[in-house]
């Protein structure tokens, strides 16, 4: 079943390299809006590289490069003269390890993106802090300690703080690179719950190592293997009646 709605992100013939090694080969996929798309596959299959190409962070690694077309709402982010800095304002990202900015308070972490973009009005910032932290389901836990360092929170709280930080600039698309792999099961469950909640407002592409997680939270699943997109479809289909044998073997744990 292919989606009828206009995709928010259209990827065509995306290739990525690390020096000589060809990390992604001719990836073409349509990411539907207001849904969670999971990217699964064994280690080193290129799934992280894939989402790092979606906000042009991949090219920040020395000797790394990418080519192809990635259109966000019709605008090719790999087009000529497109500034990656502008692209990244519209596409948020949450990383594997919680990485709040050191020596910034919870408050300052959330508004970092706004403040460094020049927004200074305290009333605006404070409003965004509350809204973003509520969205990230962290408000109730930190509302009385907004001035403590972001790094002093627990790991799970730090990760939700990073989600709030990404949401503060209101990106239509949020990329998550194994956001729960450094967290314990309880913190993981909280983040998963949060993702299901966020799906209503923002499109999410999430890389995960954990197939149960992909099955639990995603609407669509993309299976990567050795730099290729093997299968992409409705999560329920991919996990129950995959079209490709390789997908089935991975999902049933025969390799990977």
């Amino acid at each position, binding site marked *: 079943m292919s989606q009828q709605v206009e995709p928010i992100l259209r990827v065509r013939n995306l290739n990525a390299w690390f020096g000589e090694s060809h990390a992604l080969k001719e990836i073409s996929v349509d990411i539907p809006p207001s849904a969670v798309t999971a990217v699964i596959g064994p280690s080193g299959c290129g799934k992280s590289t894939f989402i790092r190409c979606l906000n042009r*962070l991949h090219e920040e690694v020395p000797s790394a490069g990418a080519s192809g077309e990635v259109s966000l709402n019709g605008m090719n982010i790999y087009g000529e003269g497109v500034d990656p800095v*502008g692209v990244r304002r519209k596409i948020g990202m949450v990383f594997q390890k919680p*990485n709040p900015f*050191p*020596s910034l308070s919870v408050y300052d972490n959330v508004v970092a993106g706004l403040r*460094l973009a020049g927004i200074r009005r305290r009333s605006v910032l404070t409003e965004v802090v509350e809204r973003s932290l509520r969205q990230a389901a962290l408000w109730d836990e930190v509302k009385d300690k907004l001035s403590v360092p972001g790094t002093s929170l627990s790991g799970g709280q730090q990760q939700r703080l990073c989600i709030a930080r990404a949401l503060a*600039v209101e990106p239509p698309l949020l990329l998550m690179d194994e956001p729960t792999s450094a967290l314990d099961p309880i913190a993981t469950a909280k983040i998963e719950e949060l993702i299901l909640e966020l799906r209503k407002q923002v499109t999410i592409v999430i890389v995960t190592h954990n197939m149960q997680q992909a099955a639990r939270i995603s609407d669509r699943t993309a299976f990567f293997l050795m730099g290729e997109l093997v299968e992409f479809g409705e999560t329920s289909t991919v996990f129950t009646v995959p079209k490709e044998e390789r997908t089935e073997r991975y999902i049933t744990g025969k390799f990977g």
Partner: protein
Amino acid sequence: MTSAQLQGYLAVGYAKRKFVDRLMRLLLLVAAIVALTPLFSVLFYVLSRGLGNLNWAFFTEVPKPIGESGGGMANALVGTATLVGIASMIGVPWGIAAGVYLSEYGRSRVANMVRFGTDMLASVPSIVIGLFVYALVVVPMGGFSAFAGGVALGIIMVPTIARNTEEMLRLVPNHIREAGLALGLPRWKVILRIVLRGSVSAITTGIMLSIARVAGETAPLLFTAFNNRYWHQGLDQPIASLPVQIFTYAGPPDEVWNGQAWTGALVLLFFVLVLNVTSRVFFRSGSVGRE
């Protein structure tokens, strides 16, 4: 060999190893004491010789003419503060900028050359830097000056601060930078507002240590700042400094002067010690390298 024999051998071997272990530990302790002896003897000696003349006048009065007793080194204290101030104004921004360049943009061949140059500069004898500044500043300006002395000390500060800044910025994990970039911030803002800010305490520590180092420098001041028996008359005039004053007063066979020199040494030593200790405490309380 029977099991009993084997056990016997093992027992003997064990006693021997235990003995060697004790011996080695003792030797290491002796080595540590030997290494620390100079420090404590210097401290003790300077204290015993310098404490006698330490009084209020030392900090408030300028030197008396030769032969008269009393007087102090107030002008040299202010001079050293002035020189260190000028040096910091030059060395700190320059050093930090170089360190940021090396850490954040330091993958090119140019950067490797800069890094090599910084290391070379750090090992250039300070008197050579004094000579260099003599040719560069003193000669064109037509005379010794506080400014020239500050420039010489500032140049000495640059490599220390640059390498320290580079190393401290490298401790900031790369995913912190990526988090900034992913928020849509330009690289320079990420560096300035996030990476640099996260290492402020460590970088400050490096600055304090380099100040402690240049505060005691004598050689580069001899033909740049020179010396001055009175309060200095402007930054374009020669200026007194604690190390040079000690050097001057320690030479002639004059009881009063020599006593003043010891007291000067005591004050200088104390100042450097305090700077070192506070910077260490400061560093420990800082947040660098922690996540």
